[in-house]
């Protein structure tokens, strides 16, 4: 029962990525955006499978990233008409409808979507690892460059705008970070279970941390532990590693919240 070096590195990178994106979306009070973005990435994967079935070879990551960014931008625009929840929900429904539509039109390859739905943490390929490294670098760079402005904006949107910060651009950066993160983990954690790995550790971190930096550190440690434990357990229990990780993360969240209250 030895975890491969590739899986270990993947878990480490995923923990970094989900800690940043999870915290940003929880701080933005738009954690449901993670679920919506993951599912729009799924629509992108379905579209790339559809294209493959038509003999057009495209990279799933590029298409999924384009879908995720476009749909999260759309959710932000929809949010202006009602509220964030409504905007995100409509975008979520639209992306799922598209995913189903593309899969219906795809022959032979539609079975491949399962690995993107539920993830395959123990079957990380070199390509997946490359995308994880690429995403981690981009997310860390964006986060490092815009950290102070993002913090100001997330704490006080009006005050930050009044101090001259371009909040529309910052919202785009947020969307970009969250979209890239969701796409990068779709192969390992899966679109359906990504939500738990992004949001539960971040919500715990936010609740227990004594500073913003601590919240990021806590949530990355929690994500790492949940993913590692999920992967280890999956060798003895016939349940997928990502499902076990999501179960552990959710159970930990409920247990700690009950203890805290």
């Amino acid at each position: 029962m030895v975890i491969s070096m590739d899986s270990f590195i993947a878990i480490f990178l995923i923990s970094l990525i989900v800690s940043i994106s999870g915290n940003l979306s929880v701080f933005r009070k738009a954690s449901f955006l993670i679920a919506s973005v993951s599912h729009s990435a799924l629509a992108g994967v379905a579209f790339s499978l559809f294209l493959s079935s038509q003999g057009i070879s495209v990279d799933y990551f590029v298409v999924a990233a384009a879908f995720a960014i476009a749909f999260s931008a759309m959710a932000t625009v929809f949010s202006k008409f009602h509220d964030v929840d409504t905007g995100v929900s409509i975008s979520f429904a639209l992306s799922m409808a598209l995913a189903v539509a593309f899969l219906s039109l795809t022959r032979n390859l539609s079975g491949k979507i399962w690995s993107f739905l539920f993830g395959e943490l123990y079957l990380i390929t070199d390509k997946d690892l490359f995308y994880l490294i690429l995403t981690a670098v981009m997310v860390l760079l964006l986060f490092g460059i815009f950290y102070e402005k993002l913090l100001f904006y997330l704490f006080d949107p009006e005050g930050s705008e009044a101090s001259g910060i371009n909040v529309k651009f910052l919202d785009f950066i947020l969307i970009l970070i969250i979209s890239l993160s969701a796409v990068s983990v779709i192969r390992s954690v899966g679109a359906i279970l990504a939500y738990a790995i992004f949001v539960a550790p971040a919500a715990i971190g936010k609740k227990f941390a004594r500073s913003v930096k601590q919240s990021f550190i806590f949530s990355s440690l929690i994500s790492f532990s949940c993913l590692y434990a999920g992967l280890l357990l999956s060798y003895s229990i016939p349940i997928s590693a990502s499902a076990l990780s999501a179960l552990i993360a959710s159970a930990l969240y409920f247990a700690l919240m009950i203890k805290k209250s």
Partner: protein
Amino acid sequence: MAIVAKNLRFSYGNKIALENLSFEIKEGEFVAVLGPNGAGKTTLLKCIIGILKADGEIRVLGKDPRKDKEVLRFISYVPQRSSISIDLPITVAEVIKMSSKNFEEGIVEELGIKDKMNTLFRELSGGLQQRVLIARALAKKPRIILLDEPFNGVDILSQEKIVEMLEKIDATVITVVHNVNPVLHAVDRVMLLNRELIAFGKPNEVFNRENLLKAYKAEIPIVICEEGLAHPLYGDQHG
């Protein structure tokens, strides 16, 4: 002049929030803006900083804030606490450093929050949270400070500390208030709004039955204090 506005007009869709608003505010003046809910008080502050693009003419420190964002370097804005994400795990020091990394310690000392620097913002009382937001605004050493309802949910001690500090600073202060009384002795002029300018002048010139009736569409009792200042008594004080 700190601010010059001529025929300022702003609408949210078909709903007019401000119309034909013209006024001038000198540098160093302390002005309270008041009026009923929906009178356009917050809208006015947002037009001054250019977040909302009003029609008409507006000059802030000689610049048009709708086009020239550089002017925002000299302005601090303290929004209503309700618009802030209070539950973030952010310390008082982190909040103040948002506007200036090298702020003067005297500010936090005078506002009585020096020993709270490592405390989480969310663990402070409403009054202390407001003092932190004022400290953040002052850390920038602004030439103009705009405050939106700084006394909402704030205890008397914090109100006094905040007013004391605002009186002392070398800046133009414009504060939107629901209840003008905590700040009345400190202000130079008061602006009474109800979408249009009802009156703008010294408290005793503004607070009379006619102006208050026009602004609030209700009889507001006025009492004269020992110092001879007219104080409007709102519902929340005698209700």
